[in-house]
């Protein structure tokens, strides 16, 4: 068994799978923690789903214009960032109810994706199976995907590192953030942009529809046992790596759909964590000694 596992890890696609899991978990652990404590899960879900339109558009332009260089992930990135901007415009924020805006953008993004993909003649251009776009296939990740994910993760980590203090104040007490001189509307936009980037990192791993699982579940489990935002992030990253690697191996072993397997492993761990929570001493298990 251990030997077969070892030989498995020598295969390039398994190595890529492992790398993708780590990259995805870093971004979802950090940004997912903000999403959970700031209660913008639904908003993040909206951003995630609109990326389907971007992916469809990229494929369509590859086919119709011959823009083969236009990676579907870049299309996803454009749509995610655009959605984040639309959500943050004063016009939308003041005139419309937030959840209505989310609902509208969500479905328009999805419908556009279906339209664009429908317009591609698949005998001319081979595209990724829409089901694996929606529900992810970590086993199909190529080196180019890894490069894009890596770049985005670097941006996410750096921005969060340098703005952590302000993001913490913003998520904890927006009114106080305003009083203390933080540009709240700009920082809120930046928060959504970070969610947008994270969404793109996660798409290849769990797919457009299941992105919300990776953004929410590891952070939610971690939040049950930690009392500091930084600790919450760190534990969420570890939970993300553990569950996504374990889920990928399971899917490989039993020939199951990878994205869904990962999500179900996370969901199961969440239920177990909820049951175990009362038995865990209320003092947090400290991962980092400093505050």
């Amino acid at each position: 068994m251990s030997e077969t596992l070892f030989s498995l890890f020598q295969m390039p696609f398994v190595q890529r799978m492992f790398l993708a899991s780590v990259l995805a978990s870093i971004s979802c652990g950090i940004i997912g923690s903000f999403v959970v404590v700031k209660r913008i899960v639904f908003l993040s879900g909206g951003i995630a789903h609109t990326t389907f339109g971007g992916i469809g558009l990229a494929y369509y332009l590859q086919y119709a214009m011959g823009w083969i260089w236009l990676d579907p992930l870049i299309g996803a990135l454009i749509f995610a960032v655009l959605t984040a901007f639309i959500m943050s415009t004063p016009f939308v924020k003041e005139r419309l109810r937030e959840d209505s805006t989310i609902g509208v953008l969500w479905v328009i993004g999805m419908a556009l994706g279906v339209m664009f993909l429908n317009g591609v003649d698949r005998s001319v251009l081979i595209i990724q199976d829409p089901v694996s776009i929606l529900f992810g296939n970590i086993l199909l990740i190529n080196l180019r995907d890894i490069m894009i994910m890596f770049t985005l993760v670097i941006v996410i980590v750096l921005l969060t590192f340098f703005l952590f203090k302000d993001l913490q104040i913003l998520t904890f007490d927006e009114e106080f953030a305003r009083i203390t001189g933080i540009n709240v509307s700009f920082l809120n936009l930046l928060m959504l942009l970070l969610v947008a980037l994270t969404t793109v990192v996660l798409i290849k791993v769990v797919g457009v529809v299941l992105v919300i699982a990776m953004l929410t579940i590891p952070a939610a489990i971690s939040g049950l046992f930690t009392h500091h935002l930084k600790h919450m992030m760190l534990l969420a990253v570890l939970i993300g790596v553990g569950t996504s690697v374990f889920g990928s191996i399971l899917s490989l072993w039993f020939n199951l759909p990878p994205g869904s397997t990962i999500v179900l492993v996370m969901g199961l761990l969440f239920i177990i964590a909820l049951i175990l929570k009362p038995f865990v001493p209320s003092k947090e298990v400290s991962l980092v000694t400093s505050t």
Partner: protein
Amino acid sequence: MVIEDITLKIRKGDFFGIIGPNGGGKSTLLKAILGLIPVTSGKISIFGRSVHDARRLIGYVPQYAEFDKRFPISVWDVVLMGRRSVRGIHPFYSTEDKQQAIKALQTVQMDGFKKRHISELSGGQRQRVFIARALVSHPKILLLDEPTASVDKEMQKTIYDFLSELNKTMTIVLVTHDIGVLSSYVTRVSCLNRFIFTHDDDRVISKEMLEAAYHCPVDLIAHGVPHRVLDEHEKRSGNGKTKGNKR
């Protein structure tokens, strides 16, 4: 909430109470002073400066009920937040910030609770932590919104005693709907219910003020004393410097 036609002068060194019924615009007034909501007409000046320029001079203690108690944050991190206005966008807090945070925690006698999570505190302790967060940037004025709303009677007294002590070095303005708790602590009082009624020099809540503010018989509020004079208090040498002037 609309509040209209208000003129309010708060002097340096005041312990100023703004009372009024729920929905009377007390929080609105505080938020206007903090620059969180725009004023459609008239102006607010704080030590002669605009609301925006004077932000750093004000420490604000919001209603404690407004916090998510599950938020993963320790007492220490909450207090450090107060240094943001001094520190600016810089990514880390300095040694100076940390020293000031310890000092502020000592002032509110919460320095033993540094590492506690905010959910592990009693209402009174949490309130003191938020006061420490306001104090850590060395404000000249402390604004408090219902500081004793969810605190038991005994802790109320402790907090007011503590605020009285602080009042020796800074101006304090608090709003509350509970006249009872103001008792002997405040030096001046206004009643706010969309319109404002202020007694300028003596510490008197007049029958007219209360009736106008609460639209109900005064006797119910003032415990049967129609013209209730707040307890004698050490006379202050308010030098008449204008802090707020809202019209």
